Protein backbone atom coordinates (compact mmCIF):
# COMPACT_ATOMS: atom_id res chain seq x y z
CA UNK A 1 0.00 0.00 0.00
CA UNK A 2 1.37 3.41 -0.92
CA UNK A 3 1.94 6.11 1.71
CA UNK A 4 1.37 8.99 -0.73
CA UNK A 5 -1.50 9.31 -3.18
CA UNK A 6 -0.83 10.71 -6.64
CA UNK A 7 -2.46 14.00 -5.64
CA UNK A 8 -0.28 14.24 -2.54
CA UNK A 9 2.80 13.41 -4.61
CA UNK A 10 1.96 16.13 -7.14
CA UNK A 11 1.35 18.64 -4.35
CA UNK A 12 4.67 17.71 -2.79
CA UNK A 13 6.41 18.11 -6.17
CA UNK A 14 4.98 21.62 -6.55
CA UNK A 15 6.20 22.53 -3.06
CA UNK A 16 9.67 21.26 -3.96
CA UNK A 17 9.64 23.39 -7.13
CA UNK A 18 8.85 26.44 -5.00
CA UNK A 19 11.65 25.60 -2.57
CA UNK A 20 14.08 25.29 -5.49
CA UNK A 21 12.94 28.62 -6.94
CA UNK A 22 13.41 30.27 -3.53
CA UNK A 23 16.88 28.72 -3.16
CA UNK A 24 17.92 30.00 -6.60
CA UNK A 25 16.60 33.49 -5.73
CA UNK A 26 18.51 33.36 -2.43
CA UNK A 27 21.69 32.37 -4.24
CA UNK A 28 21.33 35.16 -6.80
CA UNK A 29 20.68 37.69 -4.04
CA UNK A 30 23.88 36.54 -2.31
CA UNK A 31 25.88 36.91 -5.52
CA UNK A 32 24.32 40.32 -6.21
CA UNK A 33 25.06 41.47 -2.67
CA UNK A 34 28.70 40.53 -3.07
CA UNK A 35 29.04 43.09 -5.90
CA UNK A 36 26.75 45.77 -4.45
CA UNK A 37 28.50 49.09 -3.67
CA UNK A 38 27.59 49.45 0.02
CA UNK A 39 29.27 51.89 2.46
CA UNK A 40 31.09 49.09 4.31
CA UNK A 41 32.16 45.60 3.22
CA UNK A 42 30.65 44.24 6.45
CA UNK A 43 27.18 45.19 5.12
CA UNK A 44 27.74 43.04 2.04
CA UNK A 45 28.93 40.15 4.21
CA UNK A 46 25.90 40.49 6.52
CA UNK A 47 23.47 40.31 3.56
CA UNK A 48 25.35 37.37 2.03
CA UNK A 49 25.34 35.39 5.28
CA UNK A 50 21.65 36.21 5.85
CA UNK A 51 20.91 34.81 2.37
CA UNK A 52 22.91 31.68 3.19
CA UNK A 53 20.95 31.23 6.44
CA UNK A 54 17.62 31.55 4.58
CA UNK A 55 18.73 28.95 2.02
CA UNK A 56 19.93 26.64 4.79
CA UNK A 57 16.61 27.04 6.62
CA UNK A 58 14.74 26.10 3.42
CA UNK A 59 16.79 22.95 2.99
CA UNK A 60 16.64 21.92 6.64
CA UNK A 61 12.98 22.82 7.13
CA UNK A 62 11.40 21.51 3.95
CA UNK A 63 13.77 18.98 2.42
CA UNK A 64 15.07 17.43 5.67
CA UNK A 65 11.51 17.60 7.05
CA UNK A 66 12.62 19.44 10.20
CA UNK A 67 9.35 21.37 10.18
CA UNK A 68 7.48 18.19 11.04
CA UNK A 69 9.82 15.80 12.82
CA UNK A 70 9.74 13.73 16.00
CA UNK A 71 10.94 14.97 19.38
CA UNK A 72 13.95 12.64 19.27
CA UNK A 73 15.25 14.29 16.09
CA UNK A 74 14.58 17.78 17.48
CA UNK A 75 16.55 16.86 20.60
CA UNK A 76 19.46 15.62 18.47
CA UNK A 77 19.43 18.78 16.35
CA UNK A 78 19.22 20.98 19.45
CA UNK A 79 22.25 19.30 21.05
CA UNK A 80 24.18 19.51 17.79
CA UNK A 81 23.37 23.21 17.47
CA UNK A 82 24.45 23.80 21.07
CA UNK A 83 27.78 22.02 20.65
CA UNK A 84 28.37 23.61 17.24
CA UNK A 85 27.77 27.08 18.69
CA UNK A 86 30.12 26.30 21.59
CA UNK A 87 32.80 25.05 19.17
CA UNK A 88 32.67 28.15 16.98
CA UNK A 89 32.17 30.49 19.94
CA UNK A 90 35.12 29.10 21.90
CA UNK A 91 37.38 29.28 18.86
CA UNK A 92 36.50 32.92 18.22
CA UNK A 93 36.78 33.72 21.92
CA UNK A 94 40.24 32.15 22.01
CA UNK A 95 41.37 34.65 19.37
CA UNK A 96 40.90 37.43 21.91
CA UNK A 97 43.37 35.67 24.19
CA UNK A 98 46.16 35.96 21.63
CA UNK A 99 48.53 38.79 22.62
CA UNK A 100 48.59 41.53 20.01
CA UNK A 101 45.31 40.56 18.35
CA UNK A 102 42.47 40.74 20.85
CA UNK A 103 41.91 42.73 24.02
CA UNK A 104 44.33 40.59 26.07
Amino acid at each position, binding site marked *: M*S*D*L*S*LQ*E*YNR*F*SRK*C*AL*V*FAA*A*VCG*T*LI*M*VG*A*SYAPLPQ*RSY*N*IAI*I*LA*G*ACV*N*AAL*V*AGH*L*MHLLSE*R*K*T*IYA*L*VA*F*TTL*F*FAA*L*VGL*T*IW*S*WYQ*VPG*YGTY
Partner: protein
Amino acid sequence: MDVPYTVQPRPDTGVYNAKVGMWLFLASEAMLFGGLFSSYILLRVAAGPENWPQGWLSVPLGTINTILLALSAITVVLAWAACKARMFERYKLYQGITILLAIVFLGIKGYEYSTKFTHYQAVMKDGRIADGHLVRRSADAVVLRGEFVKDRKSLLRPRAQATHEEIVLPAADVVSLRSYGPAMNTFLAVYFTLTGLHGLHVLGGVVVFAYLWGPGSRLWKTDPDRFTNRVEVAGLFWHFVDLVWIFLFPALYLT
Protein backbone atom coordinates in the same frame (compact mmCIF):
# COMPACT_ATOMS: atom_id res chain seq x y z
CA MET B 1 17.84 -12.81 12.93
CA ASP B 2 16.10 -9.69 11.67
CA VAL B 3 17.49 -6.27 12.46
CA PRO B 4 14.78 -4.55 14.52
CA TYR B 5 13.07 -1.26 13.65
CA THR B 6 14.33 -0.90 10.08
CA VAL B 7 10.81 -0.06 8.93
CA GLN B 8 8.56 0.43 11.91
CA PRO B 9 9.31 3.28 14.31
CA ARG B 10 10.90 2.29 17.60
CA PRO B 11 8.34 2.94 20.37
CA ASP B 12 10.63 5.03 22.60
CA THR B 13 12.15 7.27 19.88
CA GLY B 14 9.21 7.41 17.50
CA VAL B 15 11.45 6.91 14.43
CA TYR B 16 13.15 3.93 12.79
CA ASN B 17 16.72 3.20 13.89
CA ALA B 18 18.54 4.13 10.68
CA LYS B 19 17.12 7.64 10.82
CA VAL B 20 18.37 8.20 14.38
CA GLY B 21 21.72 6.74 13.30
CA MET B 22 21.95 9.10 10.33
CA TRP B 23 21.12 12.15 12.44
CA LEU B 24 23.79 11.13 14.97
CA PHE B 25 26.27 10.75 12.10
CA LEU B 26 25.28 14.18 10.77
CA ALA B 27 25.85 15.62 14.25
CA SER B 28 29.45 14.35 14.15
CA GLU B 29 29.81 15.73 10.62
CA ALA B 30 28.56 19.13 11.78
CA MET B 31 31.30 19.17 14.40
CA LEU B 32 33.92 18.18 11.80
CA PHE B 33 32.98 20.98 9.44
CA GLY B 34 32.38 23.29 12.42
CA GLY B 35 36.01 22.87 13.46
CA LEU B 36 37.19 23.69 9.95
CA PHE B 37 34.87 26.70 9.62
CA SER B 38 36.09 27.97 13.01
CA SER B 39 39.69 27.64 11.81
CA TYR B 40 38.76 29.53 8.65
CA ILE B 41 37.20 32.39 10.65
CA LEU B 42 40.22 32.52 12.96
CA LEU B 43 42.75 32.53 10.12
CA ARG B 44 40.84 35.09 8.10
CA VAL B 45 40.29 37.52 10.99
CA ALA B 46 43.92 37.18 12.06
CA ALA B 47 45.18 37.84 8.51
CA GLY B 48 43.25 41.10 8.19
CA PRO B 49 41.34 42.23 5.10
CA GLU B 50 44.43 43.67 3.37
CA ASN B 51 46.18 40.28 3.34
CA TRP B 52 43.21 38.10 2.34
CA PRO B 53 42.85 37.40 -1.39
CA GLN B 54 39.63 38.37 -3.15
CA GLY B 55 38.39 37.46 -6.59
CA TRP B 56 40.64 34.40 -6.90
CA LEU B 57 37.72 32.02 -7.43
CA SER B 58 35.22 31.98 -10.27
CA VAL B 59 31.89 33.28 -8.94
CA PRO B 60 29.93 32.12 -12.04
CA LEU B 61 31.22 28.56 -11.65
CA GLY B 62 30.53 28.63 -7.91
CA THR B 63 27.00 29.91 -8.58
CA ILE B 64 26.35 27.17 -11.15
CA ASN B 65 27.59 24.56 -8.66
CA THR B 66 25.33 26.00 -5.94
CA ILE B 67 22.30 25.76 -8.22
CA LEU B 68 23.28 22.24 -9.32
CA LEU B 69 23.46 21.08 -5.69
CA ALA B 70 20.16 22.81 -4.85
CA LEU B 71 18.53 21.04 -7.81
CA SER B 72 20.02 17.70 -6.76
CA ALA B 73 18.60 18.24 -3.25
CA ILE B 74 15.18 18.58 -4.87
CA THR B 75 15.56 15.53 -7.11
CA VAL B 76 16.72 13.38 -4.20
CA VAL B 77 13.68 14.29 -2.12
CA LEU B 78 11.43 13.70 -5.14
CA ALA B 79 13.04 10.26 -5.54
CA TRP B 80 12.09 9.48 -1.95
CA ALA B 81 8.55 10.82 -2.47
CA ALA B 82 8.25 8.63 -5.60
CA CYS B 83 9.09 5.60 -3.45
CA LYS B 84 6.45 6.70 -0.96
CA ALA B 85 3.94 6.94 -3.82
CA ARG B 86 5.07 3.51 -5.10
CA MET B 87 6.32 4.92 -8.41
CA PHE B 88 9.54 2.99 -8.83
CA GLU B 89 10.31 4.18 -12.37
CA ARG B 90 9.94 7.79 -11.25
CA TYR B 91 12.31 7.00 -8.37
CA LYS B 92 14.90 5.66 -10.84
CA LEU B 93 14.56 8.79 -12.97
CA TYR B 94 15.03 11.27 -10.13
CA GLN B 95 17.83 9.30 -8.47
CA GLY B 96 19.59 9.05 -11.85
CA ILE B 97 19.29 12.82 -12.32
CA THR B 98 20.72 13.33 -8.82
CA ILE B 99 23.75 11.19 -9.68
CA LEU B 100 24.28 13.09 -12.94
CA LEU B 101 24.03 16.49 -11.20
CA ALA B 102 26.54 15.36 -8.57
CA ILE B 103 28.97 14.19 -11.27
CA VAL B 104 28.64 17.53 -13.09
CA PHE B 105 29.28 19.30 -9.76
CA LEU B 106 32.48 17.27 -9.29
CA GLY B 107 33.48 17.94 -12.90
CA ILE B 108 33.18 21.69 -12.42
CA LYS B 109 35.10 21.48 -9.16
CA GLY B 110 37.78 19.44 -10.92
CA TYR B 111 38.03 22.12 -13.62
CA GLU B 112 38.38 24.80 -10.94
CA TYR B 113 41.13 22.78 -9.27
CA SER B 114 42.96 22.28 -12.56
CA THR B 115 42.94 26.03 -13.27
CA LYS B 116 44.58 26.57 -9.88
CA PHE B 117 47.20 23.87 -10.34
CA THR B 118 48.20 25.22 -13.77
CA HIS B 119 48.36 28.83 -12.51
CA TYR B 120 51.90 29.79 -11.49
CA GLN B 121 53.74 32.59 -9.80
CA ALA B 122 57.39 33.00 -10.74
CA VAL B 123 59.79 35.21 -8.78
CA MET B 124 62.61 36.54 -10.96
CA LYS B 125 66.18 37.42 -9.98
CA ASP B 126 65.48 41.13 -10.49
CA GLY B 127 62.59 40.96 -7.98
CA ARG B 128 59.77 41.08 -10.52
CA ILE B 129 56.94 38.59 -10.22
CA ALA B 130 55.40 36.87 -13.24
CA ASP B 131 51.88 35.55 -12.74
CA GLY B 132 49.92 33.41 -15.18
CA HIS B 133 48.93 30.01 -16.49
CA LEU B 134 51.65 27.62 -17.53
CA VAL B 135 51.95 27.22 -21.30
CA ARG B 136 55.07 25.05 -21.35
CA ARG B 137 58.12 24.37 -19.27
CA SER B 138 61.53 23.15 -20.37
CA ALA B 139 65.07 23.05 -19.01
CA ASP B 140 65.78 26.44 -20.60
CA ALA B 141 62.62 28.44 -20.10
CA VAL B 142 59.21 28.70 -18.48
CA VAL B 143 56.40 30.14 -20.60
CA LEU B 144 53.41 31.65 -18.80
CA ARG B 145 50.30 33.30 -20.22
CA GLY B 146 49.93 36.22 -17.85
CA GLU B 147 51.69 39.39 -16.76
CA PHE B 148 54.42 40.90 -14.63
CA VAL B 149 53.37 42.52 -11.36
CA LYS B 150 55.42 44.67 -9.05
CA ASP B 151 54.69 42.77 -5.82
CA ARG B 152 52.58 39.96 -4.38
CA LYS B 153 50.14 42.35 -2.69
CA SER B 154 48.93 43.58 -6.07
CA LEU B 155 47.80 40.01 -6.83
CA LEU B 156 45.47 39.88 -3.82
CA ARG B 157 42.75 41.94 -5.51
CA PRO B 158 41.04 41.41 -8.87
CA ARG B 159 42.78 43.45 -11.58
CA ALA B 160 40.55 44.99 -14.21
CA GLN B 161 43.41 45.61 -16.63
CA ALA B 162 45.06 42.24 -16.24
CA THR B 163 46.79 41.36 -19.52
CA HIS B 164 47.21 37.82 -20.70
CA GLU B 165 50.06 37.50 -23.15
CA GLU B 166 52.74 34.86 -23.40
CA ILE B 167 55.83 35.72 -21.44
CA VAL B 168 59.02 33.69 -21.77
CA LEU B 169 61.03 33.43 -18.58
CA PRO B 170 64.62 32.15 -18.93
CA ALA B 171 64.99 29.32 -16.44
CA ALA B 172 68.28 30.75 -15.16
CA ASP B 173 66.46 33.94 -14.08
CA VAL B 174 63.66 32.21 -12.20
CA VAL B 175 64.31 32.10 -8.46
CA SER B 176 61.12 30.28 -7.51
CA LEU B 177 58.12 28.88 -9.36
CA ARG B 178 55.00 27.94 -7.40
CA SER B 179 51.55 26.85 -8.48
CA TYR B 180 48.34 28.12 -6.87
CA GLY B 181 48.06 24.90 -4.89
CA PRO B 182 47.37 24.49 -1.17
CA ALA B 183 50.95 25.40 -0.29
CA MET B 184 50.73 28.83 -1.93
CA ASN B 185 49.09 30.65 0.99
CA THR B 186 46.56 30.32 3.84
CA PHE B 187 43.56 31.16 1.65
CA LEU B 188 44.30 28.39 -0.83
CA ALA B 189 45.13 25.93 1.97
CA VAL B 190 41.71 26.63 3.50
CA TYR B 191 40.03 26.51 0.09
CA PHE B 192 41.46 23.14 -0.88
CA THR B 193 40.90 21.63 2.56
CA LEU B 194 37.25 22.68 2.84
CA THR B 195 36.22 22.07 -0.76
CA GLY B 196 38.29 18.87 -0.94
CA LEU B 197 36.57 17.41 2.12
CA HIS B 198 33.21 18.53 0.78
CA GLY B 199 34.03 16.99 -2.61
CA LEU B 200 34.81 13.68 -0.90
CA HIS B 201 31.36 13.82 0.70
CA VAL B 202 29.80 14.45 -2.71
CA LEU B 203 31.73 11.48 -4.08
CA GLY B 204 30.54 9.33 -1.16
CA GLY B 205 26.97 10.40 -1.89
CA VAL B 206 27.36 9.44 -5.55
CA VAL B 207 28.60 5.96 -4.56
CA VAL B 208 25.64 5.41 -2.21
CA PHE B 209 23.11 6.74 -4.73
CA ALA B 210 24.61 4.63 -7.51
CA TYR B 211 24.24 1.56 -5.28
CA LEU B 212 20.63 2.43 -4.44
CA TRP B 213 19.93 3.12 -8.12
CA GLY B 214 21.60 -0.11 -9.32
CA PRO B 215 22.15 -3.32 -7.34
CA GLY B 216 20.65 -1.98 -4.11
CA SER B 217 17.30 -1.35 -5.79
CA ARG B 218 16.60 -5.10 -5.80
CA LEU B 219 15.36 -4.62 -2.23
CA TRP B 220 12.38 -2.77 -3.68
CA LYS B 221 10.91 -6.07 -4.88
CA THR B 222 11.09 -7.77 -1.48
CA ASP B 223 10.77 -4.95 1.04
CA PRO B 224 9.77 -1.58 -0.51
CA ASP B 225 9.28 0.15 2.86
CA ARG B 226 12.79 -0.68 3.97
CA PHE B 227 14.16 0.46 0.61
CA THR B 228 12.23 3.73 0.92
CA ASN B 229 13.79 4.31 4.33
CA ARG B 230 17.25 3.70 2.87
CA VAL B 231 16.55 6.31 0.21
CA GLU B 232 15.40 8.72 2.92
CA VAL B 233 18.52 8.41 5.10
CA ALA B 234 20.80 8.68 2.04
CA GLY B 235 18.81 11.81 1.14
CA LEU B 236 19.37 13.25 4.63
CA PHE B 237 23.11 12.87 4.11
CA TRP B 238 22.82 14.58 0.73
CA HIS B 239 20.92 17.52 2.19
CA PHE B 240 23.67 17.92 4.77
CA VAL B 241 26.24 18.01 1.94
CA ASP B 242 24.11 20.70 0.29
CA LEU B 243 23.90 22.63 3.59
CA VAL B 244 27.68 22.65 3.93
CA TRP B 245 28.04 24.01 0.39
CA ILE B 246 25.42 26.70 1.08
CA PHE B 247 27.89 28.15 3.61
CA LEU B 248 31.11 27.23 1.79
CA PHE B 249 30.10 29.12 -1.36
CA PRO B 250 29.61 32.54 0.26
CA ALA B 251 32.50 32.06 2.70
CA LEU B 252 35.06 31.29 0.01
CA TYR B 253 33.72 32.83 -3.19
CA LEU B 254 31.69 35.88 -2.17
CA THR B 255 33.03 37.44 1.04
